[in-house]
């Protein structure tokens, strides 16, 4: 999507030239100094409408690594299709294995995007703007990765459409009393609504890109996608109403999706799964991991494209605070699991907890998870840590690992030891488990890199609104 940019339309050279160092206004401001409607527009569209040669080298390097992983994914999936799920480490009793661990991890990551775009919109948080588009794209790609796992795990993935209720010659219907079918509806609705929400937010920005593009091909491409948006006041009024309704509908949706995912476990009678705290604790964990992923992605991108004046320390600090607070809810969930194991007096629950933390094969994963999800993130209480970009970045990566381990502990450790010792087993992931997992990380990152380079990763019209509300006397002029 390169476009030859002449210097004449880069109105205030300092703020919008490609390599200019951006000024971070610190933890109290959502926008760097000196910006007006024109400069925010030029700066964000400049990420896309720059010649390919002016793309930061890190983008190429990152995309190359991600694309290698995509190929690994294709190899792993091909081998899976050829040989069946036996290439994975799944056994009886651990029939769920990595596929479901990864499914829950990815879908949890997606939740922060919807939270930022919908819930923070309804709460009128000023630091939502400039990270919402980016997080919505993250949601979309994370849900795409998540959705692949249950299908790959089916054994006969080409029959995945059997999950849907449709009139068939066998007159067989899915069982709507089962959480697994709720999951089909919840995840497919979530994917569709996330796509709609994201595209709706993009329409006015696509019009901006159409008007700013110089090459006829790029103009036509953005022009078709913008569908003739012209910024009419009547259109804006309907648009805002629609956007608000979408936010209002997405807010309970995001809570419902991870609740339904947790029902996949909680409705089963397996010790370690059968707990009522699962829905709220899964939702909090989802938001926790999602914010960690937003930070892990936003911190490098803002540096590569010099966006420190648009994604400021205020955004980073607020996200770190949300991460800390949702992390504490997750810690409460772990504490309640331990308490209920003891307080229930149920020998199976007690044994499961002992097995998780001390006696079992995977005891170390539990303590690693506690270190990653509870101990290390407590450093975010310190303002000095929250205001240190490298430290926040490291903590966000640690939380991503921790949340993956949490799902591993829930899925695998619980399944290896159920009621009857004769049905106990052990699970080891194979190289194909790891390849598929690493492959989806590659799919996710490749899509993110393409998105950042090809579409406005920060909502331009909402940044103009920020300018409008902040300092109307400086908003115009160039």
């Amino acid at each position, binding site marked *: 999507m390169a476009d030859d940019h002449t210097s004449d339309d880069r109105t205030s050279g300092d703020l919008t030239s490609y390599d200019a160092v951006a000024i971070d206004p610190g933890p109290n401001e959502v926008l760097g100094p000196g910006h007006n409607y024109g400069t925010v527009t030029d700066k964000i569209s400049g990420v896309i409408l720059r010649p390919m040669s002016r793309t930061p080298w890190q983008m190429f390097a990152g995309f190359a690594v991600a694309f290698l992983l995509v190929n690994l994914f294709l190899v792993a999936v091909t081998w899976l299709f050829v040989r069946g799920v036996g290439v994975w480490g799944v056994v009886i009793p651990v029939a769920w294995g990595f596929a479901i661990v990864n499914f829950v991890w990815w879908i949890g990551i997606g939740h922060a995007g919807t939270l930022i775009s919908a819930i923070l919109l309804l709460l009128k948080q000023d630091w939502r703007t400039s990270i919402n588009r980016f997080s919505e794209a993250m949601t979309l790609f994370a849900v795409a990765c998540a959705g692949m796992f249950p299908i790959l795990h089916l054994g006969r993935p080409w029959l995945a459409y059997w999950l849907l209720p449709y009139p068939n010659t066998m007159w067989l219907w899915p069982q*709507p009393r089962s959480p697994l079918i709720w999951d089909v509806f919840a995840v497919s609705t979530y994917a569709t609504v996330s796509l*709609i929400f994201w595209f709706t937010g993009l329409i006015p920005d696509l019009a901006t890109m159409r*008007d700013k593009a110089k090459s006829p091909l790029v103009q036509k491409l953005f022009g078709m996608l913008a*569908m003739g948006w*012209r910024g009419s006041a009547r259109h*804006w009024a*309907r648009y805002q109403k629609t956007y608000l*309704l979408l936010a209002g509908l997405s807010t309970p949706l995001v809570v419902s999706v991870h609740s339904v995912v947790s029902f996949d476990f909680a409705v089963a009678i397996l010790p370690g799964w059968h707990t009522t705290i699962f829905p709220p604790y899964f939702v909090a964990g989802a938001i926790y991991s999602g914010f960690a992923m937003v930070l892990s992605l936003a911190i490098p991108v803002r540096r590569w494209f010099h966006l420190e004046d648009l994604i400021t320390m205020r955004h980073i600090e607020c996200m770190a605070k949300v991460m800390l607070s949702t992390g504490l809810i997750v810690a409460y969930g772990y504490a309640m699991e331990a308490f209920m194991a003891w307080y229930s007096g149920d020998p199976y629950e007690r044994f499961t907890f002992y097995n998780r933390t001390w006696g079992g094969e995977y005891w170390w994963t539990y303590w690693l998870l506690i270190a990653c999800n509870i101990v290390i993130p407590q450093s975010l209480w310190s303002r000095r840590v929250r205001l240190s970009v490298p430290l926040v970045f490291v903590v966000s990566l640690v939380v991503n690992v921790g949340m993956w381990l949490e799902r591993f502990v829930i899925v695998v450790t619980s399944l290896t030891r159920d009621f009857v010792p004769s049905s106990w087993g052990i699970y080891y992931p194979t190289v194909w488990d790891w390849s598929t997992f690493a492959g989806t990380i590659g799919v996710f990152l490749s899509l993110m890199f393409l998105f950042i380079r090809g579409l406005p990763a920060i909502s331009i019209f909402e940044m103009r609104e920020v300018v409008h509300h902040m300092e109307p006397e400086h908003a115009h002029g160039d």
Partner: protein
Amino acid sequence: MPTEIKQAQSLSGLYGLMAEFDEADALLQATWRARSEGYRQMDAYTPMPIEGLADALDFRPTWVARIVFVAGLLGASGGFGLCWWITVIAYPHIVAGRPLNSWPAYIPITFESMVLVACIVAVVGMLALNGMPEPYHPVFNVPEFARASRDRFFLCIQVNDPKFDFEGTRGFLEGLHPLEVTPVPE
């Protein structure tokens, strides 16, 4: 551009007259002035939503919420109906001694179907009410209009307004101190 204006004076092939402002408040005031002057067939174009501008045009987006409400109801009843029909009529199957119509178990699917249908209808309905996709529109004929998606604010009074009179309307718009008044060819 006096020659352009002269050509446009015939009114045939003219969509309207467009005034360009560099500030949202100026446009908002201009729109209120135009309305109190009696103009009705007009529209304002802005790079971002401006609070109060739709009011100034006497426009309220009432239909979006209505169709979304109906869509939500249809989605919810469709989802519930599907579950009920599957478990009671098409494939009756007793699970754990529960009645066939075990309605509490249908609620998640009912809810998801409501959200799905309501969201799709919200966006498709909004686009339809806005007349989109609409690749061609006369306002795009004004070269400066490219900045309506960047940093400029436009008010366009259309020829089909009963009060439209080329010289009079142009004089009125000039009196609002815009950056420029441009005729919009159809």
